[in-house]
């Protein structure tokens, strides 16, 4: 029998490196908090370990006694029951000792709570806004001021529906991550546009609910460059499980380069609101906007989900007067899952409305221009 040396070698290599590959992504048997990447996360990690060891010691103590009596003091062994039923001394002791242990736990926790809440003097301030179902980031102060973008799930639908093999960072990848410099204090202001969300990146020791009408803040200072992944942690509707958060920490020089690149891009896409677009151009743009913002509820084919999300195809709104359509897209409909989409640009709103009015069998022939959207603002 002849052995095909190269392919056998390849097979062995794959086999040997496979567990290594898996480790590189994320450990499927991870038993503890992720490796801390900030001072706060480190304190949390240490306190968790402290509490864990104390609990383990109490556990062994209490159940040592209990299982000793379970084994020894059984009727089947002929053990005769004693008749004592209280001891004030013992009871005072076992009230006081837990109290002291708790003080020991509360002391470091108090220091950390105070440190977590100190969001003063940041180098960079970013606003994170929760939308159903994506995050919006706006760099407010510090290097990068003025940059703003939306960050949505990048995992293709086919992987979720089991039609394609799942990638390494399945459900934990976004189209545009939040980029921050290492070694800088970053303050994140957190709010929401529609319902509650929560901005959570475990390795940074940060979790904060995003609440419409309120602004909360957190801070972090990442030491090592890297990509840190998290997810929305507050139930926010049907796509709640598909709302990842990715923070990319890069060295300050790389960050400066990134900022410059973003600024150029922003300048390039800024258009005059009075520019007129053709119907086909708007439809083409609109399709991309639709798939990114509307398809989660109304479906890619515009049919909606009967009883839950109305269809765009043949709907009174999408085939009726333009103004009504613009109003509902920009301001949402209260009491329903239809959120306001004012945060999109004039061009995006104009093109998505044009797309909706001329697709899925709708054929109004209307080309809605960005200037019309601008008037509605």
């Amino acid at each position, binding site marked *: 029998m002849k052995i095909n040396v190269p392919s056998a070698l390849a097979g062995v290599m794959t086999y040997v490196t496979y567990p290594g590959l898996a480790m590189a992504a994320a450990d499927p*048997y*991870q038993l503890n908090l992720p490796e801390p990447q900030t001072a706060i996360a480190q304190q949390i990690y240490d306190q968790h370990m402290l509490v864990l060891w104390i609990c383990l010691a109490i556990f062994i103590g209490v159940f040592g006694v209990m299982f000793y009596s379970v084994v020894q003091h059984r009727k089947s062994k002929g053990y005769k029951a004693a008749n004592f039923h209280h001891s004030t001394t013992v009871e005072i002791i076992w009230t006081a000792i837990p109290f002291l242990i708790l003080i020991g736990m509360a002391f470091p926790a108090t220091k950390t709570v105070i440190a977590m809440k100190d969001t003063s003097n940041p180098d960079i301030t970013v606003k994170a806004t929760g939308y159903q179902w994506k995050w919006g980031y706006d760099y407010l102060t510090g290097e990068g001021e003025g940059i703003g973008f939306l960050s949505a799930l990048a995992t293709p639908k086919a992987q979720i529906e089991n039609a394609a093999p799942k990638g390494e960072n399945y459900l934990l990848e976004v189209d545009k991550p939040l980029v921050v410099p290492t070694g800088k204090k970053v303050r994140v202001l957190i709010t929401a546009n529609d319902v509650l969300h929560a901005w959570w990146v475990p390795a940074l020791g940060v*979790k904060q609910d995003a609440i419409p009408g309120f602004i909360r803040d957190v801070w972090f200072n990442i030491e090592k460059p890297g990509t840190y992944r998290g997810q929305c942690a507050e139930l926010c509707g049907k796509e709640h499980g598909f709302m990842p958060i990715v923070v990319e920490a890069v060295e300050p020089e790389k960050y400066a380069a990134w900022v410059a690149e973003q600024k150029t891009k922003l300048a390039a896409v800024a258009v005059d609101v009075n520019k007129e677009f053709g119907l086909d151009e708007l439809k083409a743009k609109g399709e991309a906007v639709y798939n990114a913002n509307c398809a989660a509820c109304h479906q890619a084919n515009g049919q909606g989900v009967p009883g839950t999300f109305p269809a765009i195809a043949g709907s009174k709104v999408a085939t009726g007067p333009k103004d009504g359509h613009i109003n509902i897209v920009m301001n949402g409909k209260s009491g329903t899952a239809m959120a306001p989409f004012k945060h999109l640009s004039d061009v995006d709103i104009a093109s998505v409305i044009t797309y909706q009015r001329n697709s899925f069998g709708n054929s109004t022939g209307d080309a809605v221009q960005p200037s019309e959207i601008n008037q509605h603002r």
Partner: protein
Amino acid sequence: MAAIPDHDVVHGAEHAHDHPTGLMRWLTTTNHKDIGTLYLWFSFIMFLTGGVMALTIRAELFQPGIQIVNPEFFNQLTTMHGLVMVFGAIMPAFVGFANWQIPMMIGAPDMAFARMNNWSFWLLPPAALLLIASFFVPGGAAAGGWTFYPPLSVQMGIGMDMMIFAIHILGASSIMGSINIITTILNMRAPGMTLMKMPMFVWTWLITAYLLVLVMPVLAGVVTMLLTDRNFGTNFFNAAGGGDPVLFQHVFWFFGHPEVYIMILPSFGIVSEVIPAFSRKPLFGYSSMVYATASIAILSCIVWAHHMFTAGMPVTGQLFFMYGTMLIAVPTGVKVFNWTATMWRGSMTFETPMLFSIGFIFLFVIGGFSGVVCAIVPIDVQVQDTYYVIAHFHYVLVSGSLFAIFAGAYYWLPKWTGHMYDETLGKWHFWLSMFFFNLTFFVQHFLGLAGMPRRIPDYALQFADFNMISSIGAFGFGTTQLLFLYVVLKCIRGGAKAPQKPWEGAKTLEWTLPSPAPYHSFETPPLVK
């Protein structure tokens, strides 16, 4: 003339202590035992209903990717699983125990308000129907989590309104039940039974009933505010209209946190009856048990905001709620130490009720430890809304409340049915439950720490293995409960005749009655020395 014989018949029936039979017996009953039975069966049916929802959830989570249910339906399932288990299974089960046991344990003939008792029970089935029917209305059932935080709950369809009405009805039932229990305990104890001579189970229920009367109206208030926000243009929780979305959470958890203790205090009572009975030794530290129970109840009312550590709170608020929450560990610890001391130098046997009670203590303490972990604000920031929290509250609600319910059911089945249950099958039920419970929920601690959020229908690949283990455990645990149904049915239909007092170490008054307990327990009150 015709009125006279009629009058005689009615009069005669009263004196013979006869009662209607067939369906009318159950519909019109004012007897505490019949009502207790109704509560217990209702609770078991709801337990299976909520269980099927849980298994559907676990089936979807068996593998990454969306396979069985779509995300909207998944959210409806998690929401309804929580509501059905809390309001349909655990609470009615304890009220069932209260109805059966409290009059017998305090030497009373029945509950104080017998007619209201009937009404308290018969409110439950329509509420359950409203909840279940909401799956079939446009938009489906409520899908905002069992805590239904606005603004998400303002977005939902009519299913949310149905849920709100169901909660109103369930709340009315709970309040009536609690008033009945309080009145019965305070007014109808046998001569000589002072408060500090009452069995622990009666004590824990007295305190629980006060908690219920305190917090149920708060829940009713908050759901009413939500209802008017949804339908009548008010803006309690809408920031754009001047309202406050966080207000809902404060009011909800002012109800919700004591509610957690409403679901555990009666368990403490049951276990405090079972452990001394099978240790053949009096309960250690009876009075400190009473004080500990009362302290837990009082503390439970001032720690609600620990559910909201990530909602944003001033630093002083976080510290206050952290210290308050941590303090609860002290009286809870006292209870655990007292149970241990009760077993210490006892003469123990390990029938099924005792096994479930020891299992209760063992697993409840693990749940208590993860509770302390969650109480510490910085750590809570990491584990809030993750599978760690799911593991934590299933350790206290399943191995806490449910295991105690099983312990109590096996303990009192001989008194209820007049037959001994099948001890071998009972032990199988315990060991299988114990094994599968831990298989299901222990690994969820790891999932939460590693970063898996709760209420997600699909997850990252690193969580796949533990989720599969958890799902296998859940199916095992669910199937095991059918064994309980079989044991109970077998016990009702026959089996060895139960003596008046089947448990050597049992001390309370119900064991002075024949088994099964007569339809009217104590017609002449016993004298308690």
